[in-house]
């Protein structure tokens, strides 16, 4: 090849084509979305995170949780995500407009977390909508929020959504009672010792997010109750740091169940309040 000019031109031209085609054009198409609202301008979705959940998002990113946990539900024809009850509809670009970075993830060495906040038991203040969601009417199988507890093994075996093989009660039941799966206390214990709740879990423990301290006066309400082997010595307790509380607040905030106009909700029965414009 002779002459630098055609070479330069070609090198620039081909790459400009790709840059415009794969980043600028899509950005024009999906890069400026607004939250969806109903006709009265209420019920905005999504809303930006704030406070502890926002800080928890940073904890999630800086510890690389997104390398193993995706946050995207694929459509029913593309994978088993909806069958696994990771969500009731596929994720859409609008779900992520306030995320930076958008933690889509690229691998699943752990389950998808797009809707993990929604799976929290109903009495948890962060997920008041969980019980009233339209799904149970349609699906005969018990959904995660309906599964009674980590110790009730028969429904857990049938239900792929339950967190794997749960540890047997003799080995792991905390002294104070039973943990509702995906409740805040469950998340804390799971982060502190994943295998005490899910025997087959492959998740690293995040003990550096917790501190062991001497009980001064009354024991803390949020101390993690472990079984004998992992329990703190007499007179000590294991409490979450502020980062751990933020991380759990973030996890509890993950919820893509709000219907979007552009996505058909797979699990919504025809009778349930449809996510269309004429609903109200």
């Amino acid at each position, binding site marked *: 090849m002779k002459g630098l000019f055609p070479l330069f031109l070609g*090198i620039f031209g081909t790459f400009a084509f790709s840059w415009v085609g794969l980043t600028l054009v899509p950005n024009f198409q*999906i890069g400026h*979305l607004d939250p969806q609202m109903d006709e009265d301008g209420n019920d905005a979705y999504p809303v930006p995170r704030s406070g502890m959940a926002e800080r928890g998002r940073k904890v999630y990113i800086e*510890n690389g949780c997104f390398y193993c946990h995706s946050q995207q539900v694929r459509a029913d024809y593309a*994978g088993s995500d909806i069958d696994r009850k990771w969500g009731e509809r596929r994720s859409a670009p609008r779900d992520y407009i306030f995320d930076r970075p958008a933690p*889509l993830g*690229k691998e699943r060495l752990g389950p998808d977390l797009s809707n993990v906040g929604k799976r929290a038991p109903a009495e948890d203040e962060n997920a008041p909508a969980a019980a009233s969601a339209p799904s149970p009417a349609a699906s005969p199988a018990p959904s995660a929020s309906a599964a009674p507890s980590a110790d009730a093994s028969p429904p857990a075996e049938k239900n792929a959504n339950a967190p794997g093989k749960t540890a047997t009660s003799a080995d792991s039941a905390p002294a104070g009672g039973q943990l509702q799966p995906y409740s805040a206390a469950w998340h804390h214990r799971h982060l502190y010792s994943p295998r005490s709740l899910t025997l087959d879990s492959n998740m*690293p423990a995040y003990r550096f997010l917790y501190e062991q301290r001497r009980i001064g006066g009354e024991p803390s309400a949020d101390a993690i109750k472990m079984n004998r082997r992992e329990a703190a010595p007499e007179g000590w307790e294991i409490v979450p740091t502020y980062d751990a509380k933020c991380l759990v607040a973030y996890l509890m905030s993950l919820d893509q169940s709000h219907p979007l106009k552009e996505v058909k909700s797979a699990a919504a029965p025809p009778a349930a309040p449809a996510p269309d414009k004429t609903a109200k």
Partner: protein
Amino acid sequence: MNPAEIPLKAPPNVADISAADVEQVERALIDASTRVPVLMFYTSAIVWLLIGTLLAGFVSFKLHMPDMFSGISFLTWGRIRPAHMNVMVYGWASMAGIGTAIWLMARLCRTTLRHPLLLVAGAAFWNFGVLLGVIGIVMGDSTGYQWLEFPGYASIVLFAAYTLVISWAVLMFRFRRGDTIYITQWYLLGAFLWFPWMYAAAQVMLFITPVQGVMQAAVTWWYGNNLLFLWFGAIGLGTAYYMIPKVIGRPVYSYHLATIGFWSYALFASWTGMQRLVDGPFPAWMITASIAATILTIIPVATVGLNHHMTMRGYFRLLHYSPTLRFTIFGAMCYTAFSALGVVMSLRSVARYLHFTEASIAYSHLGLYGFFTMVMFGSMYYIVPRLVGREWRYASLIKLHFWGSAYGVGLMTLMLLAGGLTQGASMSDPSLPFTESTQSILPYLRGRSLSGILLMGAHFTFAFHFGLMLFGLGRTASVPTFLNPVEAEHGGTET
């Protein structure tokens, strides 16, 4: 002594000097002028390689021993993994690539290296940037964008370092002698211009004026795949186009094939990337466009493969002797395998099983290690003796290095592919609990750790050998070190 001041002429009073002698002296002078910057890039790269290998071992073992060091924040898996990836990408691969590219540029522009200070400063800044970035990641400052995890303060340093290197490369082109621009120079020039573009574009679109939501993921993958293809791929292919004909001593089979290969590569490979987001929350056309582009990369891959094969035809026995050739050909073959795997994995019907599994790790290692790193090893075996004036000391160590690396990367690819398949198969069956998928891949992850041990052995062997060369402990000999004793006939020249 400033190498730029050495006149590139034979002494005028020597009448019977042949043109070949002049060229040889000229080449030696050019090599000498590149000594300091190239060795600086190589030494840094190898130090990063060792660090990255140790981190990789840690990452690999922790995947099946998750309770290891769980109380220490900076040793958590989610921080060491990006540290490993970034050390390998920016510390090892990029620095080795730049080192080789500098040397090739000087040789092919047929001019002594001018302004070495630009490059020395570039290498120093580059090292500083990588160090800063890795410390940032480990301390919990990661940005959360794949391959762009370095926090802002490190990216700036890295970009400044790169500006120094590119300004040097442009200067070299101004001083080049001769009209023809060789194939290798197309690829190198492309790499040198594409990298700052993609890096700056990604930095601007992710951090300075961030795009919204899922577009960030699109930009990240656009950057990541272009980094793989148009930065590492271009340097690797350019190097192979130089080393293979050079070692066997015959010209490239077809210049026209090379032209087709280069332009179709620039056009199609740059459009890949979105297939890694298959079925995600994106307009389907983006993903389909990338899948189509991935399939079309068959054209450049086939042309380049054919060209190398036809060049090599009749000379394959030289693989028995030349370390450079053996590493380079292994890399070139891995490039074909890597591209074929990329095409297969991009198909939607396959992605249904392999998306979100460890198979994607197999894919990137086949590209970055099997192809790029092996080609870089090959070029180092060729270039380093010409810089230090000594030959490699032990053929046995080279063999150990080659087989360690070859078996290591082969085992890793097979383990992760097979593991990815079982993982994907159990994941796509909703009647199985999710933990079935993570349990089914465990034996393969243990196998992968074994391959990590092989690679670690290979790298430490190579680093030791390189250290001997650096301290002047190589052989003084007029013939290069062959892998096996050469019998009477050998066709190629290694000069």
